[in-house]
């Protein structure tokens, strides 16, 4: 099962400006939490979700690499107290932030089909979940 709803995107449930059964435009009745337009492209949303997936997958890959290589584990030991977990967390956070910035700049003005976004995000999150499960990453122990 996909973590993300894959049906193709995007049409708002009510046409913006269409009168509701209460006689007021739907946009007026819809939530108003900090958004700019009911028809704003979904590219910025896709960028945020894909970046979250990239952060999860990057952390999972770092966990496996640290398990497989003593050199990587040493390199990831940013803090002696916290050990390699400190470098895994910092590394994944940097990759997530950079990926998000690049994706947001690239996609924010585009309306994307939701299925590829959903499938890619689901796959990336799955990589993170599987790679952080001990019986899996301990298979790579050097």
């Amino acid at each position, binding site marked *: 099962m996909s973590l993300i709803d894959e049906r193709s995107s995007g049409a708002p449930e009510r046409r913006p400006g269409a009168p509701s059964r209460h006689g007021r435009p739907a946009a007026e009745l819809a939530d108003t939490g900090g958004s700019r337009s*009911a028809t704003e492209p979904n590219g910025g949303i896709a960028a945020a979700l894909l970046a979250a997936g990239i952060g999860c997958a990057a952390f999972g890959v770092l966990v496996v690499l640290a398990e497989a290589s003593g050199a990587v584990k040493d390199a990831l030991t940013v803090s002696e107290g916290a050990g390699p977990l400190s470098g895994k967390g910092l590394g994944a956070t940097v990759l997530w932030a950079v990926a998000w910035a690049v994706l947001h700049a690239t996609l924010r003005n585009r309306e994307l089909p939701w299925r590829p976004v959903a499938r890619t995000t689901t796959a990336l999150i799955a990589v993170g979940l599987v790679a952080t499960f001990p*019986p899996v990453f301990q298979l790579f122990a050097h």
Partner: protein
Amino acid sequence: MNLLSGGEFFLLLHLGLGIAFIHGFAGGIATLVDRTTTRLAETRLKARVRAASTLLMAAALWGAVISGTWLVYPGYRAEPPEGAATAAYPKADLLANEDLAFWHDFGMEWKEHVAWLTPFLATSVAFVAIRYGRRVSSDKLIRSSLIRLFTVAALASVVAAGLGAAINKVAPNLFLDL
């Protein structure tokens, strides 16, 4: 008078962030799932609650992984000096006992790693809820995607918190007094 040691304070901070996470998740998921938009005042309130709740959950999860990794975890994984008793060194104590080693090899290894996935997921949900609130309200596919990400983040947090509670019960806690 010393009410708390440093270790106890850090653990309480870590646990307090877990409580904040639960409140953030409750408010966030309730306002993402609820689609009733009958009165403007109610929907504005709902959007504000959703924004505040998702932001609270993201902030709490960042706080939990940062405090857990850099403030609590070093005390757990500290190596005992040569010949010292392991009572103040939880990781060493668990690994020294064959019956309890599972709680480090599986329990702590899963907890410390799966927890780090949660702030990425929760932050993306909070950003979208705040920045694209109207699209979230009107587009059920996007709202459905956010609900799933938010739920995965919450379930992973529950796994981490549950394992932490179990390990805290099984392993000695003398390191908190240091």
